[in-house]
Each structure stands twice: as structure tokens, then as C-alpha cells.
């Protein structure tokens, strides 16, 4: 087991495009970072911002939302709503202190297994550089303990 920090990234993959892209990456035996833990949804438009927040709260270091390219959504434009929510969510998360690299949106069609694999590799390294987030521990416990210690 490597001593370096292994980020845990939760992925919300849409059934028709990005989940199949991940399947294709596996079928083609493309090796990529095992740090992504996928959750299947029917469409990226199903991704409720509450899921992203809960993922961070439950200890994830990063969240990836992956859907079909605009114009190719199996449900016509679910991914457009996902994009709009993502833009507002990311802006809000910045205020919460969560860096942009920790929550990413990716378009990957069913045939783009290599693109998905490369994106997961890239994001894993970006999150590794940022360090663990571990919200329940570092933010809710450690920072509070630190504040006590900062005795003013």
C-alpha cells in the first residue's frame, strides 16, 4: 500500500453515455486511477446538488459528474440542466471553501472510454495535490479543535 494520500472520488455517471464510456474503458482494458467510485444515474440531470454535498460530507475528496455532450443527451437536454446546476453549485462551493478542482463536470459519450479514463487520472492527481478534504473530520472536528487551541 503506497504511503501517499489516495483520494476518494465519487462519480455520478449517466446510464447512456458516461457509464458506458467507463464500461468501454474497462472492456478495452484501459488502465486508469482506481480512485473513482461510480454511482449510476439515468441522466446527469438526475444529479441533485444535495448528492454532491452529501458526498463531501460523507468523506469524499472529490466529486465527478459525467454526462453526454450537449446535443447528445439521451433525454434531449437533461445535461444542460446539469450544467446550469453545476455552474451555480461550483460557485457556491467556492464560498464553502471547496476548491474548483474537487468538483468537476465531464462530457463523455459512450464511445469515449479513453477520454473518461484520462479525465479520472487527471482529476485524481489534481485532488491528490490539494490533499484530503475529509469534511466530517478536518472541517467539523479538526478546525474546531484548532480554534479552541488558538485560545485568544
Amino acid at each position, binding site marked *: 500500500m503506497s504511503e501517499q494520500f489516495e483520494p476518494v472520488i465519487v462519480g455520478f455517471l449517466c446510464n447512456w453515455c458516461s457509464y458506458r464510456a467507463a464500461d468501454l474503458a474497462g472492456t478495452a482494458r484501459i488502465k486508469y486511477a482506481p480512485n473513482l467510485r461510480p454511482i449510476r444515474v439515468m441522466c446527469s440531470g438526475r444529479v*441533485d*446538488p*444535495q448528492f*454532491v*454535498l*452529501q458526498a*463531501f*460530507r460523507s468523506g469524499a475528496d472529490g466529486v465527478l459528474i459525467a454526462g453526454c*455532450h*450537449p*446535443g447528445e*443527451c439521451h433525454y*434531449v*437536454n437533461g*445535461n*444542460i*440542466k446539469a*450544467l*446550469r*446546476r453545476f*455552474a*451555480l*453549485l461550483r*460557485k*457556491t462551493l467556492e*464560498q*464553502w*471553501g*471547496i476548491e474548483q478542482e474537487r468538483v468537476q463536470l465531464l*462530457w463523455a459519450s459512450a464511445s469515449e472510454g479513453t477520454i473518461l479514463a484520462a479525465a479520472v487520472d487527471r482529476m485524481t492527481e489534481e485532488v491528490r495535490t490539494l490533499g484530503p*478534504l475529509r*469534511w466530517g473530520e*478536518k*472541517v*467539523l472536528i479538526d*478546525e*474546531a479543535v*484548532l*480554534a*479552541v487551541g*488558538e*485560545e*485568544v
Partner: protein
Amino acid sequence: MTDNGKPKLAMYWASSCGGCEISVLNIHENILTVDEVFDIAFFPCIADFKYKDVHNYPDGYIDICLFNGAIRNEENEEMAHLLRKKSKVMVAFGSCAYEGCIPALSNLTTKADTFNKVYIDNPSIDNPDGIFPQLVTKVDEGDLTLPNFYHTVSSLDQVVDVDYYIPGCPPEPHQIWAVLQIVVAALTAGGPLPPAGAIIGAGTTALCDECEREKKEKTISKIYRPFEIEPDPDQCLLEQGLICMGIATRSGCGALCPSVGIGCRGCYGPPDGVEDQGAKMLSAIASVLEVGDETMEEDHLEELIQKAVDDIADPAGTFYRFSMAHSILKRVKNGKGAA
């Protein structure tokens, strides 16, 4: 302490503004009924009570305690535990106790930054030696202690078990009276009480149920700050581009703010079944922001959407204005969130 057999009522304020107390008094002449039915066991706002009075009560002595205010410091938490012990029914009264409310917006910053702002870096302070209040200060007569100021503001149910919640900033007088009537009926005539953990004195659905404005199919083409436009008095405010939290806020207040042209701020908290009010509001608004469509180039689409989203000046502060302590993330990391 005299025990005349009347049920005991307590109302305590933790980290709060006093508005809840005023709202209780705003039930006007009904307060006389309250006085008739209840014995006031502990209500520091209106009469002189000491903490040791509460310590001396037997456990469960207080029938119903209306605890308002958030848990900001050690004293607030101590009183929460004490009153919980001494009360049969603990009510988280008002948005502060229920979900953090305005005090919880302090979770956008840190204890260190707060202290710095209050005691050092502000225009009306003169503190050349940089003195901060101390937890313990030795004086000739002994030790003076101050309660510890917590890094994070919590809601009441995050420190003690809560039996009921009455939401609102403040809860509306007619709702307070409705709840008190139920309690009075339960205590005097054996009437039914709502199930433990219930949110009472409010509706269950979103505010739109109570709002008189006309609602069409919701699409927003641009978001405006309240000072930027004069809203049409009959049309839904959100449809006009003004942020109204009503869609993600529990009904019960009668949609007071929208009825005078101000978007709902969300002070009654989320409707039943919602984990995180801010996140749901964010999701709903972004979903209907009619900017860009699937026929556009990816880059252009992202640019348009980003521009529209940037019109919302302070999403964390706006969407979590009242519910921050109850939100999924609860506080900001490293205190960078203050706008």
C-alpha cells in the same frame, strides 16, 4: 417556589435577537390566557430568573420549554443541556434554535477572524495592545470566567434531543398561538399531541401554496438584485428574476414578504422531506435559468451559463441565510466563505 399545579412554561434565549420573545408577546390579549393556564417557570426576558432557580427544579419539572436562539458558545450549550434535563417537552422555537438562522451565518467565517474583526480590526475599536477576552481572568477576589466561544454555530438539536420545532424568524404570532392552543388542550383536556420530532406551527408544503401571486410556467431569463427592478405586483417574483426562496421554504407565515414585493428569504426553513434547503433552492433556480440550449457550441454554452450564474452575488449567504447550521456541510472550510 410555589407549586400551584398549573403546567410550567419556560422560554429561554440563547444566541438570539429577542424577536421570538416579541413575537410571543404579539399574540396580544391571548397572552392573558397563557398567563392563566401556565405558570412561568423561567423566562429571563420578562422577569428576573436566575440559573440556580433552574438548577434547583426537579428533572422534568418544566412541562414545556420554548428554547430560542442558536448554540454559539458554552453558556448556550450548558443551558440547553440544563433545560433539557428539567423539561418534559423541549421545543426548538424559531429559526435560530431550529436550524441556526442568522447567527449560523457566522459559519461562513472562523472564530479567529471574528475575534479579529470585533476586537482589533474595525473602525470603532481602540485596542492598541490587542487585548482579547480571556476564558479565565485572575483577579484578587478569585477567577472570572467567560463561556467559550465556539468555532461553529450549532442548532439546538445538534446538542440535545428536541421534541418539536416551531420554525420562523420569528414564528408568526398566529402560529404561536395555534401551537399553544394545542399544548393547552393536551395539558388540560387530554387532547392529542403531534408526533415527536414534528415541525409544528407551520404548513408542510412550500410557500407557493400560500402566495397570492400568479404563477405561470417557471423560466428565468436573468436574475436581478432587488434594487434593480420594480416588480409587477401580481406576478410571481421568481419569474421576474428576483430571488424568492418561497419555492424551497415551508409555508405557514402567509407569504408575508412576497405580498409586499420582497422575495421570501426562507426563514421558515425547508418543507418536509428536504435535507438541505440551500441545495434544493440552488437546484431549482439553476434548472429554470433559461440560458443556453443543446444546439450551442460547448464553450459558448458554458460561457453564457457562467455569466447568468454570476448575477447571483452571494449564493451561500442567500440560499443558506437561515438554514446553515442544518445544511449538509454546516460550516465553511477555513472560513473563506464570507462574501
